[in-house]
């Protein structure tokens, strides 16, 4: 598969890229020379250089860490900079479209401010008072669990793929999305945090909308187990608080905040 895609043998990348804005547009075909080691973002840059100087694309680090170049490559939400060209069949036409869930600005660029608005609604970290010697202590086993959540690069691919808002625009006001369930989980499980976000999760953040179909986990470029390690544990804490009369009676199953 990869042999045809190496430098010097005249291999070409056939691309079908979305061109247009919120008022309309179309897919346009471009062909550019393919070189060894290219990723989709390189090909988009080659199209800019050779055929379409006005092709709008948001990008920054080219290393899978800034979370800017999210797009839908052959219909799958991906980071363009982390999608290698040699993973496609030689000669295959590769479709590149903007992420679907957010309003289109132009070409491959969307307005992701929905996410920034949701971020503002999350009750912030509220640490417990310092100990007598003026410090706060955390233990490794408590940090290990939340460390995973801190890998998030905010590419919003999970938000894009989540069908709750991708296919149902009307749910946007009442649903925060997987990225912010990860954020809330990192705070709720934090050994020093004292705030309680379970009521927020159930109501404002709309955790109940999630039907755990795990697409967020499938697309995460940082391989955060969003569903198993943040959403389901948060659902279980919400169950303890609101749906489990026996746990409420016992009153002790949920740790410090439940």
């Amino acid at each position: 598969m990869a042999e045809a895609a190496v430098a010097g043998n005249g291999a070409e990348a056939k691309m079908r890229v979305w061109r247009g804005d919120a008022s309309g547009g179309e897919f346009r075909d471009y062909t550019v020379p393919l070189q060894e080691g290219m990723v989709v973002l390189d090909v988009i840059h080659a199209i800019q250089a050779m055929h379409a100087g006005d092709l709008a694309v948001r990008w920054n680090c080219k290393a899978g860490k800034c979370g800017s170049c999210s797009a839908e490559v052959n219909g799958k939400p991906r980071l363009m900079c982390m999608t290698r060209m040699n993973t496609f069949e030689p000669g295959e036409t590769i479709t590149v479209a903007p992420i679907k869930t957010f309003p289109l600005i132009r070409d491959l660029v969307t307005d992701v401010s929905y996410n920034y608005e949701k971020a503002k609604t999350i009750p912030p970290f509220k640490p417990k008072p310092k100990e007598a010697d003026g410090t706060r202590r955390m233990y490794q086993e408590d940090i290990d669990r939340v460390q995973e959540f801190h890998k998030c690069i905010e590419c919003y691919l999970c938000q894009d793929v989540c069908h709750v808002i991708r296919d149902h625009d009307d749910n946007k006001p009442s649903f925060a999305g997987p990225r912010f369930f990860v954020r809330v989980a990192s705070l709720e499980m934090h050994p020093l945090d004292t705030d309680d976000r379970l009521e927020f999760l159930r109501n404002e953040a709309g955790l109940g909308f999630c039907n755990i179909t795990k697409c967020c986990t499938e697309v995460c470029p940082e391989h955060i187990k969003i569903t198993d390690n943040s959403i389901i544990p948060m659902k279980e804490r919400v169950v303890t608080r609101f749906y489990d009369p026996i746990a409420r009676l016992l009153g002790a199953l949920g740790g410090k905040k439940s």
Partner: protein
Amino acid sequence: MSTLAIDKRTLRQDTWWLEPMLVVLGLGAFAVYSTWAALQNGNYYAAPYLSPFYSPCLAINCEHVSVPLFGSWYNWSPAILILWIPGGFRLTCYYYRKAYYRSFFWSPPACAVRDAASGYSGETRFPFILQNIHRYFFWASLPILAFLWWDAIIAFNFGGSFGIGLGTLVLIANAALLSLYSFSCHSCRHLCGGGLNSFKTAPGRYKAWGIITKLNEKHMQIAWTSLVWVGLTDVYVRLLAHGVIQDLRFI
């Protein structure tokens, strides 16, 4: 939003429909077989083996009584008395929810493929809000597991003398797989220690949480393996009871 050509059901070109189709076939086949087997009200015991679909057998009229809770007035299949527990456990399981929401409800059928229904309220309303009772089914599954292990132990007893048949091994594997399925459950993981914010103060629960977490990573694989195995166990006992096959005796 008028994004026209972009606004298709999906732009995916791979065989995204394959996985939901296989799940429909797999879960559908199991649902049909288990319903049929549960309604047979017979041929579920071939001494010393009791089919897991009928265990524990709670009626006086059972071919093999585990606990005689229901008197001779009860004439329906004793499987009905018990199957709602493992059935409800699997129906509300976080893995099976993913599987059937995708395959049967097309909500969504696959990632980045549009939902079939135009409206969506997830698990915020009846009936899906009932998924929140999953942990009760987890608790209820534990006594069932104890009975299945008991069935596996008495499967060594061939009319008073010790023996091992193929059925003994089948029942042991069945009890083991169903135990793995129950203990790898997400609710179990939460109850063991996931609900804590600090593990430092609860080293025992931290250790339990660690073990369950490892198991939980394989919850899907265990769910399928145990599902197929429990079905095959019933098939094996049923074929023995019908006299279609003879049990292979090792000892």
